[in-house]
């Protein structure tokens, strides 16, 4: 594998998907993370607090990151579970989560139409104690039709 092949893969990794955030999406996420505020499941409570519908917990973008971009046919998944298209052209034993940062501009509300855009921001290879480490940093941008963002995330995966 050459650095050039990695660069080509990175350039071809951009994806854009538009989805509608549903009340079920929010309820499932809230229940899964143990968020018990009724604002996540009860529209009346949400409306009383000034929202149009139920509101997602603050880090709901993590559900969109995988929930949107992992929607691939089962035979398009690597043995360990990652979509094959998300795996750089390298040999690796483990994929791990690296550093993540995110700007949170406003909460996701049921009914929001969200355009989710992903691109590879950077790639890097470093020699570690256990061999070569490959760092892939993705940018995920979640915005409405006017490109007004809900959240922007920078997420690094480490392959070794």
């Amino acid at each position, binding site marked *: 594998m050459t650095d050039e092949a990695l660069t080509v893969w990175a350039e071809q990794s951009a994806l854009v998907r538009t989805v509608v955030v549903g009340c079920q*999406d929010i309820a*499932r*996420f809230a*229940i*899964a*993370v*143990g*968020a018990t505020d009724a604002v996540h499941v009860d529209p009346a409570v949400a409306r009383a607090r000034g929202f149009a519908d139920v509101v997602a*917990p*603050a*880090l709901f973008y*993590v*559900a969109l*990151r*995988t*929930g949107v971009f*992992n*929607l691939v046919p089962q035979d398009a*998944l690597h*043995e*360990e*579970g*990652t979509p094959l298209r998300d795996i750089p052209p390298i040999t690796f034993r*483990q994929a*791990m*989560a*690296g*550093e*993540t*940062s*995110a*700007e*949170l*501009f406003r909460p996701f509300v049921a009914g929001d139409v969200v355009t989710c855009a992903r691109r590879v921001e950077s790639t890097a290879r470093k020699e570690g104690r256990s061999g070569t480490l490959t760092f892939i940093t993705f940018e995920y941008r979640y915005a409405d039709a006017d490109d007004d963002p809900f959240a922007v995330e920078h997420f690094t995966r480490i392959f070794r």
Partner: protein
Amino acid sequence: MEASDVLQGGELPPVAHTYRTQELFLFSAATWNPHRVHYDESYAAGVEGHDSLLVQGPLQAVHMFQALSDALVEGARLTSVRYRHLAPLHAGQPVVVTGRLTDVDPDTRSATVEVRMEVSETGQQTTTGSAVVHLDDRAGTEGER
């Protein structure tokens, strides 16, 4: 109210938790995460060498910042977060989330809070991070509460 007041006493009261396998399943389902290390114990142990099922990194992050959100004063909200995973965390390992205020910017009415999740028995940090918290313009003004 000032930005230095976003977290009472400047400390996040410790929040203890132990991840159950059902919780890992629900989070993988809610996030459409098919990674086998979170639900297939034979794969997690036999192929990747983990002691048990691995707790999702984003789930740890959600819980760290949720604990912080729950402790913030009314009118304060998270506007950015940063976190990294330092060590594997396995289902059944008791953890505790702690945090403390580390910086205040009166001009922007914001504060930085560092948070961490660590294994209760060993003190091994599994995920650490920080959040910038902003006070709404009206927070703490007369009649607002």
